[in-house]
């Protein structure tokens, strides 16, 4: 016995809220991207917990795809940040033209 699925889901929900708060509240493009990563990780935790709850491996498959999409997203996002920094010299989203 580990813990009820509701507690795993609650952990994922709290992590998601933390990531969303980081994305909305911080004024730095790098921290905004880190908030996205936290949110995707929270989604993966919820999927893995659900895979154990319903004894189905599909949840783990989805968590793997989430990992791949996160890798693609972060490479594009960081390339965009480098591009923005070279053009405008800042990474604060409210100081861009």
């Amino acid at each position, binding site marked *: 016995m580990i813990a009820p*699925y509701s507690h795993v889901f609650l952990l994922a929900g*709290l*992590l998601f809220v933390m*990531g969303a708060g980081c994305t909305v509240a911080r*004024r730095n493009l790098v921290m905004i991207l880190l908030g996205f990563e936290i949110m995707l990780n929270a989604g993966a*935790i919820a999927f*893995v917990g659900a895979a154990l709850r319903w004894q189905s491996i599909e949840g783990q498959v989805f968590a793997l795809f989430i990992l791949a999409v996160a890798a693609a997203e972060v490479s594009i996002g960081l*390339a965009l940040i480098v591009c923005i920094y070279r*053009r405008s010299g800042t990474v604060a989203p409210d100081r861009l033209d």
Partner: protein
Amino acid sequence: MTFQTILFYLLAALILWATGLAITRRNLVHAVVYLVLSFFGSALLFYLLGAPLLAALEVIIYAGAIMVLFLFIIMMLRGEALREKFHPRRQWLPAGCMGLLFGAVGILMVLHDPAASSPLMPAVASPARFGQHLFQRHWLAIEIVSLLLLVALIGALLIARRGGRRQNPAAEEPA
């Protein structure tokens, strides 16, 4: 209260603590290092929940590759990235209210679900079985994801190169 139960709550506390510290740091390097700790905790949680392959991939991809990429970019932007002003206080009130509302609704919704209160039984999906299932049932999705990664690779190269060209057009001419 078994050993695995205690382990789960310890890991949950570790993940929430490290993530909470990470999103409030002003220094970006500190934030990334705390987030690495959080992802290691997530990897242990995956192992506890019966996904050893995903635990290994979480360490390799998230805590390894992605966070090192973030560190490289932070070192490229050094100096600029450390000066960050937070939002004024009057904007924190509505944000905090919405967050509390969301948290309260989520907790009520989860705790009032009768089916979700029974404890999870430990089970392990071995990497071999996971891989077989993945490539037998989801081969098309695997191909699409690999295409997505290829497109992301080419796109990142193009975006980064074009950004450099516009900045100093003189460097473009000799080529």
